[in-house]
């Protein structure tokens, strides 16, 4: 990793120790879901190689689950592709938000793109300065990548799984996101943007295809358009 923080300093940093601990905890939940994905994919007719390549290259959990469920239910490749693409689209919005924090060599940014997902963006946004944002993004993205792909391999080979809902692991994700978004809610504008995003999403869930409600939540950023009052004077 390049940048002002050396790898040895990362572990000594109190804030980043929290990030590491959270990544391992969240990583376990990610691993269990990945095992479940591996099993679902193989039972939908994918080979072990196809299943693993999908996790390595696609690396967007919700899209992958959606694609193999459509195929498993006898749907066409086109409809599997369509719904999965819709779920992957929000990562482009995360990219817009992360770009100012991921400046550097092109090669580094191209690698960063692959790990631009819900978890890495949320964890980065929970940090208070640029150095920590950058470090949190990389630590989270890379550890989730490791857990997701290891879990996929285990699930694809073993073909049996524990149901993630048994341990409440499905709620581990929204719980983590609550904690990550919480510090920013002290800021009035962020709180308003979050309220708009949440409301738009809930309102659209029953009426639009899966993936669309979260994309439309981007509407919340309109609260950033007016100049902040304290700087207007």
């Amino acid at each position: 990793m390049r940048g002002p923080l050396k790898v040895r300093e990362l572990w000594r940093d109190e804030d980043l120790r929290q990030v590491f601990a959270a990544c391992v905890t969240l990583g376990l939940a990610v691993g269990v879901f990945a095992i479940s994905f591996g099993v679902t994919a193989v039972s939908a007719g994918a080979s072990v190689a196809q299943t693993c390549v999908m996790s390595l290259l696609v690396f967007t959990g919700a899209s992958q689950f959606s694609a193999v469920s459509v195929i498993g239910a006898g749907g066409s490749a086109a409809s599997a592709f369509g719904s999965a693409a819709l779920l992957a689209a929000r990562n482009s919005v995360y990219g817009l938000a992360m770009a100012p924090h991921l400046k550097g060599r092109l090669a580094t940014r191209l690698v960063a793109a692959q790990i631009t997902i819900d978890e890495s963006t949320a964890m980065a946004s929970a940090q208070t300065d640029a150095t920590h944002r950058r470090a949190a993004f990389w630590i989270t993205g890379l550890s989730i990548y490791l857990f997701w792909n290891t879990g996929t391999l285990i699930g694809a080979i073993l073909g049996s799984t524990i149901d993630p809902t048994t341990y409440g692991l499905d709620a581990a994700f929204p719980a983590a996101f609550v904690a990550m978004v919480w510090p920013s809610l002290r800021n009035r504008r962020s709180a308003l943007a979050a309220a708009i995003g949440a409301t738009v999403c809930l309102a659209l869930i029953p009426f639009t295809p899966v993936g669309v409600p979260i994309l439309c939540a981007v509407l919340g950023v309109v609260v950033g358009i007016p100049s902040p009052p304290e700087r207007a004077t």
Partner: protein
Amino acid sequence: MTWTLVFALAATAYAFKVLGLVLVGERKLPAMLDRCLALIPAALIAALVMKDTFSVGQHLQLDARAAGVGAAVIAAWRKAPLIAVIVIGAGVTALARALT
């Protein structure tokens, strides 16, 4: 499942991920756009919490997850460490599921 689908999905997913990073890139943005981009995580992550907590596919559903995420909100408000919030969220959801 075909390799064509696997690679088409891989290319599309990566294109989405790289699009935002490349569009903004090294550019210096107008202050207004900077302010808007900075609000993206709050807006989308809040939406994600709603989706993960209250929906199954295209249906809204109130179940054990609401109890777990509710407990997570209290834990976050009480400034519990991130790892504790995650464990509390999962644990309370599992407990609520076992009881109902």
